[in-house]
């Protein structure tokens, strides 16, 4: 099984959820997170400092601590190995604006999954169809 962890823009969470549901992946965990990426500082800020070097002393000391942290959403899905790539493509399709700050997707291995309600393990525990079948019986 694969765990897909995506860090996305705050305002894309609803579209991402909708898209994932329409692809058949309804199980998602979402967490509010703060983060920054590789982009060191906004160009506009540097330009402002260049124009007003005298008033920018505190700005400069702020810059020494790196860029600011932006509010992000961290979403996690666990899926069978063969479904991971379609989850990744869905997330990329919805969240891609082409500008820095769209986020990252990390994929890692999950060695086992247990469904607490029934005690099922492995693929059985994350098989959505299997779970809904059981409920209807």
């Amino acid at each position: 099984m694969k765990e897909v962890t995506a860090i996305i823009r705050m305002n894309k969470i609803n579209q991402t959820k909708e898209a994932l549901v329409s692809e058949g992946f309804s199980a998602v965990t979402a967490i509010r997170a703060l983060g920054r990426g590789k982009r060191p500082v906004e160009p506009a800020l540097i330009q402002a400092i260049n124009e007003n070097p005298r008033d920018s002393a505190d700005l400069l000391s702020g810059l020494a601590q790196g860029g600011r942290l932006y509010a992000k959403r961290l979403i996690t899905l666990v899926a069978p190995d063969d479904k991971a790539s379609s989850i990744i493509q869905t997330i990329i399709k919805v969240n891609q604006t082409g500008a820095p700050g769209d986020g990252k997707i990390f994929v890692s291995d999950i060695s086992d999954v247990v469904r607490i309600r029934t005690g099922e393990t492995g693929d059985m525990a994350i098989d959505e169809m299997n779970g809904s079948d059981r409920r209807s019986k």
Partner: protein
Amino acid sequence: MIMIRAIVRPERTATVMQSLLEAGYPAVTKIEVAGRGKQRGLKLGNVVYDELPKEMLMVVVNDHEKDFVVRAVMESAKTGDKGAYGDGKIFVSNIDEVYTISSGVRES
């Protein structure tokens, strides 16, 4: 690639992030969490605090940079010379694939 998740004292996160920045790792994700450790939280009189506020920092780095980053976090998150209970833990896990959403490119 390697994901390093460090659970540190909230008052140390700024220090840890500063030392990561100086080491060349500006990209960090920060999540506020609550937890306890092996000491079962803090006991003050009759009151037990077993959900202590911590912050989790998440960094993803190349395989060969792992030890360097772990050491950087460890040194900056430690309090006092020997460290103290509650300084936190660092968890290291393997990441198979990394994608940048803005370009859609797979990075590893």
